């Protein structure tokens, strides 16, 4: 029962924006990965990184995965 009380204690109006930001990052990174021609390293690796690593995954992809040329 303790877990239930912790969940209800947290104000979801406070946490929701964070979840939204994380969602946007993930979706934008995924769309970008599908549309881009080439990445640094194999595409499937970046797909795993974006989906599996929380918040940081999409950011790492944007910084290191994209090829600008």
């Amino acid at each position: 029962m303790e877990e239930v009380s912790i969940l209800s204690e947290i104000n979801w109006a406070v946490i929701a924006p964070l979840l939204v930001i994380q969602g946007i990052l993930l979706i934008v990174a995924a769309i970008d990965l599908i549309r881009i021609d080439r990445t640094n390293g194999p595409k499937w690796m970046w797909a795993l990184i974006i989906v599996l690593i929380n918040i940081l995954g999409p950011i790492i992809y944007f910084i290191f995965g994209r090829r600008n040329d």
Partner: protein
Amino acid sequence: MQWWTLFQKELIENVRNVKWVWVPLVMILLAVMDPLTNYYLPQIIDAAGGMPDDTEIQLPEYQPADVVMMSLGQFSSMGVLVIALMSMGVISGERKSGVSELILVKPVSYLNYITAKWASLALLTLVAFSLGMLASWYYINLLFGALSFGALLQVLLFYGLWLLLIVSISIFYNTLVKTPGLVAFLTIATVMLMGLVTTIFSHILEWSPNRISTYIQQMLTTGSVPSDLTGAAIVTLMMIVFLIFGSVYTFRKKELAS
């Protein structure tokens, strides 16, 4: 007019490589992370198993000014890293791939080329930083207590200047070396070195840009702008102008040499 065209080209490019999406989002996350974890620390400790019954830890009561400093603290470490990493390839990458030659074959002045790059990066950084601090301000008013919008604007103005200096340092190294990774490393190393020098010679360097965040804290607690902050802001502005002209100069020399 030429400058405006170059500037628009930079803006469009930053929209295409999704910097306009991810940099503001990352800045918002950075600004909001520390205030939220500190506010929910009691619950987090409970969820992680709780304290033994006989421990007594007084969790501090945070004032709005303390929380602003938490957000700024994140910007000084992770924010600088993000700025350095997102700006590392803007000129050096183009020179490596030969795009800059395609542009500079046309009668484009070096000054326009560099300042357009600088302005687009500066705009992106400032907008992202402002959005981050607005999010932080929202949570401060929600969870910790009132902070006036005027105080927030002052924080944005002075700390924004410090972030512009980092952008300028990065642009300068962009014109100096061709490897993007090295640009990011040199930028971060320079900022750390400046911090080190400032702490060692703190009695002389009262107007060092690195002390802006300390003075911002003073400003928030006393409610008036300390004179040292104005001085530091002037020094920062001068360094930015100096760095921009320095980058135009090195860029011209490098391009003529190659």
